[in-house]
């Protein structure tokens, strides 16, 4: 999980969980592979069909605002996305992503273009844009969250340690 490499899909500010996992597909919530076919559909129609394993979701401010539906980060992860990079995240989305083992990165995303190739070192907090040649650093997750992420999420973390160890 340490070095992630992939292409970017760029989104704007305030992408809500209604954009990511629209309520009209509510009945698919117990069928995540089917729901995944609609991931981020209301923000970018081309995404769900063309996203490749390893790709990054790159967004502006307050990514994932709105409902607590964990299905939102779950289908982003299921689509093979290796991490979500944003200027800022909504609280519940951020926590859910960590809990299910989807890396979330708080970083200045303003210079990143759609289709750029990125290289991310989660542990060291380094982001390299292979397309533009630019480099940036970001604060790595707290050691508690990194621990959960590395175990593959909170469920795996508890299974491994028998309790929540922080």
């Amino acid at each position: 999980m340490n070095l992630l490499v992939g292409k970017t899909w760029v989104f704007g500010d305030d992408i809500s969980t209604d954009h990511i996992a629209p309520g009209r597909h509510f009945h698919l919530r117990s069928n995540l592979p089917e729901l995944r076919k609609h991931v981020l559909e209301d923000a970018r129609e081309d995404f769900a069909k063309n996203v490749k394993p390893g790709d990054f979701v790159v967004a502006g401010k307050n990514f994932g605002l709105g409902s607590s539906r964990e299905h939102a980060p779950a289908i982003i992860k299921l689509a093979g996305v290796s991490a979500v990079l944003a200027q800022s995240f909504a609280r519940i989305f951020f926590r859910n992503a960590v809990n299910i083992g989807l890396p979330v990165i708080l970083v200045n995303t303003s210079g990143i273009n759609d289709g750029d190739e990125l290289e991310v070192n989660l542990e060291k907090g380094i982001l390299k844009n292979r397309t533009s040649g630019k480099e940036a650093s970001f604060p790595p997750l707290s050691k508690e969250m990194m621990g959960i992420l590395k175990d593959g999420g909170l469920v795996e973390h508890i299974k491994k340690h028998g309790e929540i160890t922080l």
Partner: protein
Amino acid sequence: MAEKIFSAKCGREVRAGEIVVARVDLAFAQDGTGPLAIRQIEKLGLRGVARPDATLFFFDHASPSPRKELSDDHVFMRTFSKNTGAGVSEVGAGICHQLVAERHAAPGMLIVGGDSHTCTAGAFGAFATGVGSTDVAVAMALGQTWFRVPESFSVELTGRFEKGVFAKDLILHLIGDIGAAGATYQALEFSGDLEALDMESRLTVSNMAVEAGAKAGLFPADEITLAYLEDRGRSGEKLGPDPGASYQRSLEYDLGRIEPTVSKPHSVDNTALARDLSDVKVDQVFIGTCTNGRIGDLQIAADMLAGKKIENGVRLLVGPASRETYLEAERHGLLRIFVEAGGLVLPPGCGPCVGVHQGALGSGEVALATQNRNFKGRMGNPEGFIYLASPATATATALTGRITDPRKVTT
């Protein structure tokens, strides 16, 4: 207050920013987040829940179920509850947050819910916060989970609302001011002269704390809180911030200066005054939800509608938040007023709020709703347009067919 509640739960002084593991007093999920939570509990290799009496499942988002997939989810949740002894609130009982207010919440409790508007119970001085399915699963299975103790953001209130202005206008105005991420990660804490806000008004305000990004929306527990609890055969103790408590940010509002406020599509912080939106034609008005579907809300609407008819071409949907609300509205003759005015009364539940069933918008249609969110696609159609407002503004709008400042409508 957040530090104070977490300190009490942890049995030691904790400070904002600390990550703690705390025992929860109530963990619940609804029919949208419950099935995944149950699957996560099963993944943990656990069959049961730590405390069945502190574990609840609500059927409110798809209630009654409009399709077989959701009916199967309901069956799955019922079976799990039966096997574990967890509580179930059936189809028709009402919206989870309203039922938590009516039956469970008390000052000082630590509540997690698999629904972002769990912050509603902050109106009681409970630390209540919305979490995802995995978090709620862990809280149900282990009776505890991890938290980062949040910083606090103080909002001090003075004065009295003018006629036609309500708690909903205050919270929309506040979110318009600070933005949809204005309080991210913080606990919004309301203080000042709170007599102007009854329990229902406080529930409306706390409900929308998450729309400013906040983790909780806390009111101190005072006489008003205790009287509400007593009315329902419950009890609690007063709870407030310590004198000299420190805040990351502080704001003050004079309620007398708030005007009827509306959020425009497609974000809650995109606010304007109702009186400046009189050009906006509306196809559907919805009065209900965990934000504004309580008896006081329905009473305001009924008082304005009595003996009148809504505008031709407008659909008016009214959704009582709970069975108790529904029965009380029936007893007071409100349901009859809605129907005679040309409206439609829905069963208790979330109704059209989240676009699962009932009242989905047509493409290009405009709705004005008393709910808490107007994101693109929220009411079932990304081509629809949703405005948010108070029940009074909603009723005035149903009467005229255009967004209308309720102060313009005589009762």
